């Protein structure tokens, strides 16, 4: 049992670190009683080593994931008023100027660090975008499974709270749209009805972040190009 716990703890460290110090740490852990505080100490330090070894894109992506998760939780507990920045963050995070700058910046950084092909910069941006999209995909998965309901807010509508409607995801919609719905008689043909309550399709929400990935790749590549330009400018001109 003890050996199994130690092996699991060691697996939390990055592979390079394990190769260098894994044997020594294992030896030390085997020689002492494995108390909760020692397990906690090793666990905490393993996470720290992971963070130190992580690529900048992973760190930025995890940061974005936390921001989006925070927005997602607040959307359910206390939805923000229509038109606020936090509602835009959840619905159009791929189109926000700051987010695009982040992707381009990461592309620049990746190229300056690795000096490799441009696709590495593109892939770094894709990684950020994917991680940032996880809370949205989570919302989609909860909608598909029926755990999360949807309320659509138009301009002027008052946000509903968690206490009034249970687990509800608030979606902000600026336009009156036509929905194809079946009215009363299930055998009747579908009719187009003007409605403000067209909820987004759960599957659409689930897959939406994946559709932002190609654009993120291009923003990252653009950053890589900028990085290449910076490198060329910095290099002394040969005679």
């Amino acid at each position, binding site marked *: 049992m003890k050996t199994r716990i130690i092996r699991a703890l060691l697996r939390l460290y990055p592979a390079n670190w394990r190769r260098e110090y894994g044997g020594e740490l294992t030896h030390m852990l085997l020689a002492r009683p494995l108390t909760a505080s*020692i397990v906690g*100490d090793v666990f905490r330090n393993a996470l720290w080593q992971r963070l130190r070894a992580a690529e900048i894109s992973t760190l930025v992506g995890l940061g974005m994931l936390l921001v989006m998760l925070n927005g997602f939780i607040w959307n359910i507990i206390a939805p923000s008023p229509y038109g606020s920045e936090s509602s835009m963050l959840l619905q159009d995070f791929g189109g926000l100027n700051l987010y695009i700058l982040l992707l381009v910046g990461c592309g620049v950084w990746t190229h300056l660090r690795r000096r490799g092909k441009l696709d590495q910069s593109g892939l770094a941006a894709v990684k950020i975008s994917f991680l940032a999209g996880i809370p949205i995909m989570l919302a989609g998965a909860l909608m598909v499974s029926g755990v999360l309901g949807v309320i659509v807010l138009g301009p002027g509508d008052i946000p509903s709270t968690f206490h009034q409607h249970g687990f509800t995801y608030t979606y902000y919609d600026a336009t009156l749209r036509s929905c194809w719905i079946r009215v009363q008689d299930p055998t009747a043909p579908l009719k187009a009805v003007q409605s403000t309550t067209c909820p987004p399709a759960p599957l659409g929400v689930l897959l939406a972040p994946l559709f932002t990935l190609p654009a993120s790749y291009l923003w990252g590549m653009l950053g890589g190009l900028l990085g290449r330009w910076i490198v060329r400018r910095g290099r002394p001109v040969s005679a």
Partner: protein
Amino acid sequence: MARKPKTGPASDPELLILSSLASGPKHGYAIMGDVEAFAGVTLGPGTLYTAITRLVEKKLIAPESDSGRQRPYRLTAQGATDLTEQLNAMRRVATAGLRRLRPA
């Protein structure tokens, strides 16, 4: 018995490891025991190896050639200089602080 320092430079794992290695090369387990004996601080295994990793990266300590599963570490010349500077700075602060605490 002196109170164990919980925070501040006297409980900094890197400083404690450097001070321990000042008396000669030691492997991880011996460093841990030594630090406990001279400073009253118990370093967790994870904390110890995180600090060792940083010190090796900064070239302040270096592993000796492999000897079984426990590699001894030694203080490098750069590490000795760094430790001397840190301890001298601490002594200056400690002397000034203690002098000011003394009633006039």
